[in-house]
C-alpha cells in the first residue's frame, strides 16, 4: 500500500509537468497580450516604448524557452512569481481566495451528501412508490436548473420579499462564523442542490443494484436486522460510485464556480481564474491551472484510497 501511495504521488509530477507545458504554450498562442490590455485597454495614450518597457519588466521580451524555464525553476522552489496584472505574489493572491473557495466547496459537498445519500437510498428502498417519484422529480429538477440561475432566484427572492442581500464581502469563519455562514450558505445551497441531484440519482441506482446482490439476500436470510443489512452491507458497497462522483465534483467546485461566484459576488478562485484569462495574466493563469489540476489529481487519489477502505476486496499493489 505504501509503495502504491508513493507511486501515485510520484506520478503526479509528470502529469503536472504535462499540464504546465500545455497551459504555457496555449496561453502564448492565444491572441492579445496583457500589456496591450493594461494600457490601450482603457484608451490611454501609451506609446510603443512604454509598452515595450512594460513587456521587458514582465519578462515577456525574453525567448519562450527562457520564460518557461524560469517559471519552472520558480515552481521547483515553490515560488510561483508575481501576478503580471497586480504585481503581487501569486501565492498571496490565491491564498486570500482559497479559504472562500474551499469552504464553499466543502459546504456545497456537505449539502449534496446530506441530501443525496438519504434521498437516493430512500428512493431505492421505496422504488416505484410516491416517495421514489418525488425524489426523482426533485433530482431531475436539480439537474435541469443551473446553480447560477438558482442563485439569481435566491437573490431576487431576498431582494423582493425581505429587501435583504447576503453580505458582499467575505469574513473568515474563524473571525465571525455568523457573518461567514450568512454569506456562504446561499451559494452553497444553490450549488449543493445541483450537485446533490447527480449524487442522488447515482445513489439510487447503486443501492438498487446492490440490494439485488446475493450477499444481501444471504444477510437477510441469516436474520440480520434490515437496518444493519442496509448500512453495513448495502450502503457501504453502493457508495463506491457515489464517492467517485462526489470527489470529482468537489475538485471541480474549487475553480469552477465562476458564474455562481459572479452572482453572489464571491471573491473566489473561479472569478480569479476568469479575470486572469481575460487579462492575459499569464503567470496567474498558469498557477491556477496547476492548482486546479493538482486538486483533481489529489482528489482522485484520495477517492482511490477510500475505495480500499470501503471495499476490503480492493487491494492496491
Amino acid at each position, binding site marked *: 500500500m505504501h509503495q502504491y501511495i508513493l507511486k501515485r504521488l510520484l506520478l503526479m509530477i509528470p502529469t503536472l509537468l504535462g499540464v504546465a507545458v500545455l497551459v504555457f504554450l496555449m496561453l502564448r498562442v*492565444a*491572441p*492579445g*497580450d496583457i500589456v*496591450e*490590455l*493594461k*494600457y*490601450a*485597454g*482603457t*484608451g*490611454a*495614450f*501609451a*506609446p*510603443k516604448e*512604454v509598452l515595450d*518597457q*512594460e513587456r521587458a*519588466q514582465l519578462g515577456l521580451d525574453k525567448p519562450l524557452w527562457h520564460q518557461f524555464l524560469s517559471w519552472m525553476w520558480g515552481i521547483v522552489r515553490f515560488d510561483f512569481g508575481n501576478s503580471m*496584472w*497586480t*504585481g*503581487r505574489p501569486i501565492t*498571496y*493572491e490565491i491564498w*486570500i*481566495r482559497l479559504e472562500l473557495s474551499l469552504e464553499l466547496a466543502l459546504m456545497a459537498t456537505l449539502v449534496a451528501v446530506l441530501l443525496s445519500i438519504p434521498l437516493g437510498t430512500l428512493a431505492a428502498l421505496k422504488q416505484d412508490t410516491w416517495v421514489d417519484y418525488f425524489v426523482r422529480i426533485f433530482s431531475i429538477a436539480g439537474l435541469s436548473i443551473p446553480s447560477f440561475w438558482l442563485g*439569481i432566484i435566491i*437573490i431576487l427572492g*431576498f*431582494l423582493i420579499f425581505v*429587501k*435583504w*442581500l447576503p*453580505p*458582499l*464581502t*467575505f469574513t473568515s469563519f474563524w473571525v465571525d462564523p455568523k457573518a461567514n455562514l450568512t454569506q456562504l450558505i446561499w451559494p452553497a445551497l444553490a450549488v449543493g442542490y445541483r450537485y446533490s441531484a447527480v449524487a442522488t440519482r447515482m445513489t439510487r441506482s447503486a443501492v438498487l443494484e446492490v440490494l439485488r446482490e446475493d450477499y444481501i439476500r444471504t444477510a437477510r436470510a441469516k436474520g440480520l436486522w434490515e437496518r444493519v443489512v442496509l448500512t453495513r452491507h448495502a450502503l457501504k458497497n453502493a457508495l463506491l460510485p457515489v464517492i467517485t462522483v462526489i470527489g470529482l465534483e468537489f475538485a471541480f467546485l474549487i475553480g469552477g464556480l465562476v458564474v455562481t461566484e*459572479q*452572482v*453572489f*459576488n464571491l*471573491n473566489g478562485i473561479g*472569478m*480569479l481564474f476568469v*479575470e486572469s484569462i*481575460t*487579462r*492575459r495574466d499569464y503567470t496567474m493563469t498558469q498557477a491556477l491551472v496547476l492548482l486546479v489540476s493538482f486538486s483533481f489529481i489529489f482528489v482522485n487519489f484520495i477517492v482511490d484510497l477510500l475505495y480500499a477502505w470501503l471495499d476490503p476486496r480492493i487491494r492496491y499493489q
Partner: protein
Amino acid sequence: MRVTERPGWHAAITASTIFSLALLLFSPPGGAAEKENPRSGGELVFAVGETPPSYDGHRETTFAMLHPIAPHYSTLLRFDPQGYPKIIGDVAESWSASKDGLTYTFKIRKGVKFHDGSELTSKDVKATYDKIILPPQGVASARKAYYDMVDRIETPDIYTVVFHLKYPSASLLANLASPWNFIYKAEILEKDPRWYEKNIMGSGPFTFVEYVPGSHWVGKKNPNYFMKGRPYLDGYKAIFIRDTAPRVAAIRSGQALIEFRGFNPAAKEDIVKALGDKVVVQESPWICNLTVTINNEKKPFDDVRVRRALTLAIDRWEASKALSQISLMKYVGGLFRPGAGSQYATPEAELTKLAGFGKNIEAARKEARRLLKEAGVPEGFSFTLKNRNVREPYEVTGVFVIDQWRQIGLNVTHMPQEGGPYFNDFRQGNYETGIDFNCDFMDEPDYQLLKFLSSDKSPLNYARYKDSVLDDLYEKQGRATNAKERLKLLRQFEKRVLDEQAYQFHILWWQRIIPHWAKVKGWKITPSHYLNQDLREIWLAE
C-alpha cells in the same frame, strides 16, 4: 485662490470659469444647491466594477484604481467638485502665469501633511511631476505625452514650484488638475520610484486601512487633513463587484449606497422602481464616445468616397432616440462632447452640415449610394465590423450600425471579440471596420483630438492613416493664445476628420447615469467618472 497675473490668452480659462459659475445655477440634487447642513460621521460604502491593477495613479488608466485610491491623495490643482470645469487649487494655494505664458508659479499651502506626519512641500510636487513627465528607466507614466510643453520644474523655496514651458500651452492648468496626478513623497520616490505601485502614502482626506484584493478597499478619515472640517465621513469602503446585476442588487439592498461610474437606463429604472424616493438620480453627458474606426489601409476603405458613404448612412439622430432607451449612448456630437460644461462642442446648426450628422437621412443615404457606385463598390459588398464582446453599449451599437449600412446595400458581419484579441487586431491593423471607444477626464481638445493624429504620432489612432494637415492643426490649436483662434482651428480639424476625409467618426456620446441613495449628500455628478472621487465633500444624512 489668488491669480496674480492673467495673460490675454487665458481668456479660454476665464470663459470656462464664468461658464461654470452659470452652471452652478442649474445644479442637480446632491450638489452645491444643498440647503442642509453637512453632518459628520458614517462610513460610505460604494461599489466599484473592477479591481485596481496597481496603486500608482501615474501609471494606471482605469477608474478601478481612481475610485478606491483617489481619497488617499491630493493633487496640485483640481476641477471644482461643485462646478466643473472650473479649476481650483488643491495643495496649490494660488498660482500665476507670466505674460508670455511660459512660466507658471504655484504657491503650496503651508501645513499640508502626508499621512506619516511629514509636511508636503514643493520638493514633493517637483518629484511627482518629474516622475510623470520624465519617468526614470523602468517606470511607466501613462500620460507623459500630455506634458510635452514642460521644459523644467524648479523649486525656489519649499512652498513655491515653478513650471517652465517650452511653448505656451492652453491645456497646462487642466493637465495639472488631472485626477491621476497624485502628489507623492519625494523622499520615497528617491529611494524607490516604483514604491507607490504597491503602497499608499498620500496627503488626501482619507488614510489607508485595508485592501483585500478582489474584495474591498477601506479608508478612514485623516484627522490632519489640511482642509478644516473635511472630510465629513469617518471612512469609506469600496466593494469590488464586477457584474452589473450584483452591483444593482448591492444598491437595491443598501449594502452599497452609490456606484460612481454609472448604470445603464434599465439598471437605473430597476433601482428607482425598487427604492422610490430613497434614491436620487444624477445624470450628465459623459466625456466618452463610441467611434467607427476604419482601416484606411484596406481596400476599398482607402477611398474617401467609401468612408464618406459609411458615415452618411448612419442616422445618428435616430440612433440617439433608439439607443438611449437601452444603453448609455445618447448625444449626437462631433469631436467634442456636446452638452453642459463643454465649451468646445460644435453647435447643432454647424454640426448638421458635416457628413453623417445631417437630419435628412434619405438624402444622405442617396448620396452614400452614389458615392459607393462612383467608387466601384458593388451592391451587397461584404466586410466585417469588429467589436468588443460587451453587450452594452458596444454590441447594441454594432448591431445598429450594421443595420444602417445594410440600408445602403452593404452586407456587414458583426464580430464581437474578447478584449485581448480585440486590441491585438486593432493595433496590428487586422480588421476592416470596428467599434472603438474613448473616455477622457476633461473636455480638452489636446485629449479628444489625439486619436485623430497620424498613426505614427498617435498610438490611439487605429485607423492607420497619415495626415500632416491634421498634425499641423493639432499643434497650432494646442499653442493658440486666443480662445477664438483656437476654436476656429478646432472646427477646421473637425471638418477635415469627419467630413472631408471621414477617416473615422463618432457615433454617439454617452450619458452618465448615477442612481444613488438620497442620504448620500455633497456629491455632484461631473461629465467624467474620473473626477470628483476624493470623497472629501460627501456626507451622509441620517
